[in-house]
């Protein structure tokens, strides 16, 4: 085994961004739970989960993602069974049945189902030639996605359902499915969504309507959205200081260490802090797309695309919701929001990316440039600069 070469190909930018984001999350969770005076249980749990994430990132390059091809359907089947089980035997919190309770921990199968879905879709399109152009495989992928999406929708968890659909859309598009299929399905989906809207749960409607004007009913459904926006705005340029935000510390902000953790960041660390976190996300996602384009096969490329979209969509929807660009949906912010299942799932995703990165260069030939990068930008330390195959060979 050429272990040294593998570690050379390891994407340190990606890992660094992931760990820093996770650490920032822990600090913010500490701030959000400051009232409990001692270090809260939530902080300790999250720290433990982050530790597990680091272990995953360390182990991942030693495992070849290509093994997953044979496990894809098993993983998919297992996740569907788990989603079914949670509908039957799960714990209901706040009118939504999404969790299994295991001792002091709760397990959210819909998080792990994201990885299972990504892997099975990646495998589905890459297991044989010309599958992306074949309309039968296209519809097959819809069925594969619809099963877990429907189960999650029944929990009910609108946000995660939309995530599944988003992941599917991006993966199908990036795999190269003809535009006409995608447009046709998009139109059909919009019609279906429109029909669903008519018999949608009341709280979902409220989220949609109050998104349009959170000030209309400040004590009612718009409360969370409005308070989140106030928190963000009150941060101004430099923030009100870590552990000093009145919105956070006086609990005007609800579910703050979960879905609204970005509002804590924006209030206490201001525009500057928010920018730093967004830059970290941008770096991480750019690295992820580079790994996708440098993957040695379609399977790896598809997985990388899936993980990229999964992290990107959750980040965009979560932050967008907090700053009033999108309606309030219960989507956690990857790396930062409190939640073991979500954090582990995200780190598994990053681990997959590392495995793809490390196993992309077993060949001895040079990869053609994927897209032209101007010579002056080819600085070694820049995060979007890929290591060229020649260099890796030389070492």
């Amino acid at each position, binding site marked *: 085994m050429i272990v040294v070469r593998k570690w050379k190909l390891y994407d340190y930018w990606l890992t660094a961004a992931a760990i820093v984001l996770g650490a920032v999350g822990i600090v913010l969770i500490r701030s959000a739970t400051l009232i409990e005076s001692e270090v809260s249980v939530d902080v300790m749990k999250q720290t433990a989960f982050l530790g597990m994430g680091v272990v995953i990132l360390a182990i991942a390059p030693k495992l070849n993602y290509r093994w997953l091809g044979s496990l894809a359907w098993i993983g998919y089947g297992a996740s569907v069974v788990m989603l079914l089980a949670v509908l039957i035997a799960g714990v209901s919190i706040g009118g939504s049945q999404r969790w299994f309770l295991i001792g002091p921990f709760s397990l959210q199968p819909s998080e792990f189902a994201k990885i299972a879905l990504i892997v099975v879709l990646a495998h589905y399109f890459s297991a044989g030639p010309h599958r992306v152009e074949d309309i039968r495989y296209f519809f097959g992928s819809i069925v594969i996605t619809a099963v877990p999406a429907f189960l999650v929708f029944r929990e009910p968890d609108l946000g995660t359902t939309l995530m599944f659909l988003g992941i599917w859309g*991006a993966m199908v*598009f*990036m795999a*190269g499915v003809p535009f006409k299929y995608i447009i046709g399905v998009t139109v059909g989906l919009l019609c279906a969504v429109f029909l669903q809207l008519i018999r949608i749960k009341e709280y979902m409607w*409220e989220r949609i309507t109050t998104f349009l004007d959170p000030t209309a009913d400040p*004590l*009612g*459904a718009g*409360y969370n959205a409005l*308070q989140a*926006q*106030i928190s*963000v*705005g*009150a*941060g*101004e*340029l430099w923030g009100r200081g870590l552990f000093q935000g*009145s*919105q956070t*510390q*006086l*609990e*005007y*902000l*609800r579910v703050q260490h979960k879905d609204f953790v970005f509002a804590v960041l*924006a*209030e206490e660390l*201001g*525009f500057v802090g*928010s*920018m730093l976190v*967004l830059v970290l996300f*941008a770096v991480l*996602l*750019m690295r992820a*797309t580079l790994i*996708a*384009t440098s*993957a*040695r*096969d*379609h399977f790896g*490329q598809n997985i990388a*695309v899936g993980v*990229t979209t999964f992290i*990107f969509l959750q980040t*965009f929807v979560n*932050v*967008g919701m907090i*700053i*009033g*660009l999108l309606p309030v949906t219960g989507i956690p912010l990857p790396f930062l929001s409190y939640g073991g299942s979500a954090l582990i799932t995200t780190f598994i995703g990053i681990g997959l990316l590392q495995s793809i990165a490390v196993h992309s260069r*077993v*060949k001895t*030939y040079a*990869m*053609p440039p*994927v*897209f032209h990068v101007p010579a002056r930008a080819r600085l070694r330390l820049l995060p979007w600069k890929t290591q060229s195959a020649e260099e890796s060979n030389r070492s």
Partner: protein
Amino acid sequence: MSEEKRRLTRREAIRFYLLRIVLLGSFLALVARLWYIQIVRGPEYRDQAENNSLRVLSVKPLRGVIYDWNNQRVAINAPSFSVVARMIDLPRDEVESVARRLAALLEMPSLTIMERMNEGLQSPYLPTILKRDVPHHVALIIEEENPYLPGISAESRPVREYAGGDSVGHVLGYVGPIPHERTEFYLNRGYERDDQVGIAGIESIYETELHGDKGQRNVEVNAYGRTVRVLRETPSRPGKNLVLGLDLELQEAVTTMLHEGLVESGAPSGAVVAMDVASGAVRALVSLPGFDNNLFARSISQEDYARLANDPSRPLVNQTIAGLYPPASTFKLVSLAHWLENYNMDLDMEFTCHGQLTLPGGWSFGCWKRSGHGSLNAYEGLVRSCDVFFYSLVGGSPYTKFEGIGPEALAQAATSCGFGQATGIDLPGEQDGLMPTPERKQRVKNEPWFQGDSYNTAIGQGDVLSTPLQLANLSAAIANGGELMYPRVAAEIRGTDGKQVKSIEPRVARRLPYSAEVLSVIRNAMRDVVARGTAIRIASNPFGIAGKTGTAEYPGPRDEDGHLPTHALFTGFAPFDEPEIAFAVVLYGAGEGSQYAAPIADKLTRFYFESVRSARQ
């Protein structure tokens, strides 16, 4: 392992370009929006964040304490907790769950709680009271459950506690939430919706003095409305204390006496007034049946209120100032005074009483003493309370040429003695009473005045109506040399430091238009009423009691002898030599004044001089 290298197809390459553009574009949108919210509109949102957490709370003042004549506290503030909601801190979608949680704690239906919360939406920043006077452990639970009960808190809101219970309910009144029809009135005076105000009695008359001034507290609150930090505080100023001329000990003793009198006579209700003759200070003011004002102060239950309001003996009406009774024979004092003053102290003219007086038309007017009094003058007429004498004195006698002093002159005399108008006591709800005149009868009933009307009026029957307080006040005026005072329950308003702020000076309402000699004769006659007249039953009283009995007929079922039912009345003063206390006793439908009312006056004076008075010396 294949040696083939994988190339991105053109299609894939384009799509990856698109993907990166979408990613970066989305992040730019987030950055732009963050810039807008945090930098462009940041100051605005920071203000809102501060408005969220910075509140001005009002600090309720403590209500003034009420003391009696002996500096005994009769109304105090007892520690108690009220559960309040500040709707600004209670998100609308949590109202129902919070109300349900509270329902179990407060033992009241969640619907009622939600109704109150709804009212609270009118002033979301101010506390809306959900339940008063909750037990301490409930208050503790509410505070502990704070994260699950946003906007709900248990606040210290003292409740009024009255010593004396049933005996002082009418006089002191009670405090309660601002009545709906008075809301605007009080809000304009700086009150808040959740304030308590005096509703009846002294509490209501002296509301301005007792209430005090609210303070202010600038605080930082958390999202659940709980105060996290006090930034600045202007303390409230407690209300002024009130010292009454009323003596709690006497009040309670008189309540017992009257109660026994009611039990003995079978009367449903009664009233006793005792007042200082010189100052008009009310020493006791008892109306039975009464009510326990503590019930009202602790927010009375529906059943308790219904029971009081529907009771036929009307426990909520203060009979001493709002109960109207014919003054009956006590009214003879007026006729006698007028006669002596305007007819040269004529004690020579006599009329003969045969037990009744018959007019030429055949109308017959009886004396209470069927066997007749024989021949008597004005003085003896009062002492022995001869009806026939006073018929003749006022309406003229068919047996002599005397025309009578006439109904107009009598009405004028009665008015100058305080009949037909409220005394102006410092209690709400006082009645004027009624003094009939021929002119009024014509106007109201459209009937002419007959001689019989004069006769009826002469003995305080017919349409004459007075309150027990009016009778006591007249006795006081006779006793003090002719000054009709404004009766006063309160004597002094004190600052909380105990220093006197303002004493409520005695005020003369009017002077009786009678000379000292006339009043002296009347006092002698009143003394003789007890010594050897109609009230001889209480002659053994050692304190020189003087008075006048009254037995007032009122329309009702007649007894087996054909007599109308009667109220028992007695008014007078004591001691005879140096009058100090005046009183009036009325027992509704009890019977003879001498039999039922006078003994209570006897006991009252004994108690007053033996216990109250001697304790103060």
